[in-house]
């Protein structure tokens, strides 16, 4: 068995919340409270749970948008949580993130070409403007968009199109690990299906490993190989997706699964 691409051990991310009272101590929110998991190359692991369970904080900690309180996260054998920010910067190319809100995740003042060009120049992946434009065009085609849109601004696009652009920004640097934080939650059902198919297709084609964070169990089943269920900052159950969905062991997983409203019962009844 090969070494895992990412290996997280006993990760904790706590936040201190200032309390207004004079004599009350600051409250500590244990958003992520000791979780461990591995992601193999080319594998899709989903983190699923309800709001406030800490699943998004895991993603933000692994991309160093939040500071970890303790724990180790080894990416290709290097601990990415402890290294100085300057040392982590080149690694950002390998660990990319797709965000939830397609309206907020693109800078409204930059054209699509400049947004997609930024990581290319930072990581020196294009030697000239022409090469950058060519790569941007190719990547836009990859996500199902017309390369001609690169001179336009984000407000000219719909939510689904913006999310495609967000995916293009991630794919353009050819990362090894993509963290998708509620990547399709803000989209309408018909558009969500398109984007979900796109993500799955790109993942299959390129063999990128993925940490897929979502509250939607249907989406999670559709995209992942393995699933980890989070509750109050901890992983309560982790396993192969068929085990989780067909033979859940933990009571919370069972509760989650039984709470989902289904259309299927009607279809089978008739």
């Amino acid at each position: 068995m090969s070494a895992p691409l990412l290996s997280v051990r006993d990760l904790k991310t706590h936040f201190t919340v200032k309390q207004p009272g004079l004599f009350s101590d600051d409250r500590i929110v244990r958003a992520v409270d000791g979780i461990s998991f591995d992601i193999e190359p080319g594998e899709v692991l989903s983190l699923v749970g309800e709001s406030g369970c800490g699943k998004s904080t895991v993603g933000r900690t692994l991309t160093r948008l939040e500071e970890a309180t303790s724990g180790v996260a080894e990416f290709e054998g290097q601990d990415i949580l402890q290294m100085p920010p300057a040392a982590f910067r080149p690694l950002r190319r390998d660990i990319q993130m797709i965000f939830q809100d397609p309206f907020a995740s693109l800078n409204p003042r930059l054209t699509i070409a400049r947004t997609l060009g930024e990581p290319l120049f930072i990581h020196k992946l294009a030697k000239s403007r022409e090469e950058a434009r060519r790569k941007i065009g190719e990547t836009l085609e990859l996500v199902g968009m017309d390369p001609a849109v690169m001179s336009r601004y984000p407000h000219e696009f719909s939510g689904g199109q913006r999310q495609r652009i967000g995916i293009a920004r991630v794919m353009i640097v050819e990362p090894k690990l993509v963290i998708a934080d509620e990547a399709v939650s803000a989209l309408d059902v018909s558009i969500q299906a398109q984007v979900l198919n796109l993500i799955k297709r790109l993942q299959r084609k390129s063999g990128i490993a993925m940490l897929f964070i979502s509250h939607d169990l249907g989406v999670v089943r559709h995209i992942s190989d393995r699933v980890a269920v989070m509750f109050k900052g901890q992983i309560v159950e982790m396993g192969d997706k068929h085990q989780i969905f067909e033979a859940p062991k933990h009571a919370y997983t069972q509760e989650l699964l039984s709470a989902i409203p289904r259309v299927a019962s009607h279809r089978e009844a008739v």
Partner: protein
Amino acid sequence: MPLLEVDNLEIAIAMRGQLLPVVRGISFSVDEGETLGIVGESGCGKSLTSLAIMGLLDGTPVRITGGDIRFEGQDLRQLNRRERRAIMGSRMAMIFQEPMTSLNPVYRIGDQIVENLRQHQKISQKAARARAIELLELVRIPEPQQRVDSYPHQMSGGQRQRVMIAMALSCDPKLLIADEPTTALDVTVQKEVLDLMADLQERMGTAIVLISHDLGVIAETCDKVAVMYRGKIAEAAPTDDLFARLAHPYTRGLLNSIPVVDRDVEWLEAIPGRVPGIDEDIEGCAFHPRCPRAQDICRRNEPKQHRIGNEHTSHCHFAEEAAP
């Protein structure tokens, strides 16, 4: 006579000096004690329809441009404002999507329920407060005696939505309009709230119009369903009938777009294209640019209503063929 009858309702938004139609002639009815689900994606006009029925379009750039809304046999559009207000909150009540912001943050929740009670009933402050506590108990808020004096920010999202339900049901309404009541809630909380609504409906005999983007929620809670697309009802039917014989490509596409939890699907059959903006003009059937089976006739003519079954209708030129 149905409790609520909407007949050829048209709604438009005033934008930059022109009226853009958002609801383009829809009709449906709700009987006493019945639950109607209206489902559709953002911008289809479902929320504006609910606001129009409730009478909450005043002071917005949105107005009703045609059609009738009859409630208990009365034409709501003919009533004056005072008569209209007498119905709001008493015989017809509404709950909204955002439980976090739908209650006034500066008043105690008990006082907000009391306000609704005393607006419509001759009841003393003390009796109204006692009734508010009863109502909180009814919606399963623990320790209602204490919680009646809580402020909204001291409660969770699910609890606030229960408070909203308690307030809406305080005057025993005949009709409850619920606009995406569980969209902002987690699935486990959503289940509790939906169960509560179903339970109360059974006990009180309230009719419900449930607006949702989630076909699963609709399928589990509604007696009949209307599927809206771009301001029109694409397909309407009793719930079981609808899922048994999908008679509109949009309903089928919507259903196939949902990733299900109970079995593996390799690729979702997504609807291609995107939801058209309200300022775009589409000739013929509004769905034709995204429809896999669109023919010339779909690009030219707007489809009429086709009857598939007793109460099953579809606005598709190929409605009969679509249904298996």
